[in-house]
């Protein structure tokens, strides 16, 4: 993106004799931009009356022109096509606002630059909330890669081993194997209430053991 999205797009002009990508040349050497504008205005007026052929011709003739406009803002061919299609959809939705007594070019360029600026703004806003997914993120999520947790894990396993058998069983079923209370009750043969009590006491004991271990 070479330009900021908030810049005034007033440099977009339909009539630009010296533009490097002047699509007027695509229409043949004899056609001046002014004649082309009149052509397009007539086609649009017919399209407003429901002439499909005129509308098709108009959209096809304006496509390379809109593409060259979009090229000033986007580099990816996919983005350029998206922008051109967005402009066409807007033109289609508000084609009744065109007044055939006025030139067609400024009407089209105003809509085009509006859509292009809006799309850039939207994109900038979205980018502000996004972060690229790097290999670092994958490393943190993968369990095998988190080597630094090993010492903590060893201490925790040792502390759990030191718990009384009932509490150890409750912790292993409910917290390590992540069973529900019902499932754990079935497996262990303990009641739900005693499982809850055992877990509570186990956590309390663990907290004590681990913090004591750190303090000393």
């Amino acid at each position, binding site marked *: 993106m070479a330009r900021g999205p908030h810049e005034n797009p007033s440099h977009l002009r339909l009539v630009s004799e010296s533009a490097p990508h002047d699509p007027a040349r695509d229409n043949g050497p004899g056609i001046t931009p002014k004649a082309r504008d009149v052509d397009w205005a007539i086609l649009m007026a017919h399209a407003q009356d*429901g002439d499909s052929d005129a509308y098709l011709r108009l959209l096809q003739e304006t496509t390379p022109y809109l593409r060259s406009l979009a090229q000033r803002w986007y580099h990816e061919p996919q983005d350029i096509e998206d922008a051109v299609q967005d402009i*066409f*959809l807007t033109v289609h*939705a508000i084609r*009744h606002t065109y007044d055939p007594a006025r030139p067609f070019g400024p*009407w089209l360029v105003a809509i085009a630059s*509006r859509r292009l600026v809006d799309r850039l703004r939207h994109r900038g806003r979205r980018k502000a909330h996004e972060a690229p997914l790097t290999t670092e993120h994958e490393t943190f999520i993968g369990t095998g890669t988190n080597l630094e947790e090993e010492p903590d894990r060893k201490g925790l396993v040792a502390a759990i081993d030191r718990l009384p058998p009932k509490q150890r069983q409750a912790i292993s079923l409910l917290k390590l194997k992540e069973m529900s209370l019902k499932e754990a009750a079935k497996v262990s043969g303990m009641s739900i209430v005693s499982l809850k009590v055992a877990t509570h006491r186990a956590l309390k004991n663990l907290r004590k053991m681990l913090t004591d271990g750190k303090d000393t």
Partner: protein
Amino acid sequence: MIKTSDLVSSLARDLPPVRRLRPPLVRAGCWLMLAAAILALLAVAQGLRPDLARCLDDPAFVTGLAASLLTGILAAVAAFLVSLPDRSRLWLLLPLPALVIWLSNTGYQCLSQWVSVGPDGISSGEAARCFATLVLTSLPLSLVMLVMLRHAAPLRPRIVTVTGSLSVAALTASALSLFHALDATMMILMWNLGTAIIFVALGGVFSRRMFRWVAPRAPTISQ
């Protein structure tokens, strides 16, 4: 992802004829006629303020009323013009002089004759009637303008809504000063400036959302 040539041919297929918009000045005139009709109906229903004749002798009152009416009219014209894609944005400056006169006149009046509470105190009945006038004037005008300017949704939604809201606010404030005797400065400030600020702010904040209700439907493509 649809190809551009396919999109073009699908848009052109079975193209229904559309009715062209009338010139913006004509459309603004229609809307202003609706506003005049609403004000006239309110005048019949609620009656003008009892001391209107005396007020009309007061140059400050007449200036303020004329300026607020003019702001409403010019802002409506500007909104209808700017809602079209190929009109210059400089039209937005059209209501500015009238707006400056209206606001400075209100401000000057308030500074020079500050009456914090009227002779009979602030009566809640009058405030309620003021509020009724406010809603009865602004609501239909806002809705009609929103529908009339719906084609501006993909173009300049915010600035068009703000200008339209300014027009509604100015006309509403004119209605209030025509129909209600506002003796306390606070009331004048509230009903003039307050209305204007509230409408313009609401317009600015909710412009896109409001237009989404009435916007011409275009099939959206993924970005």
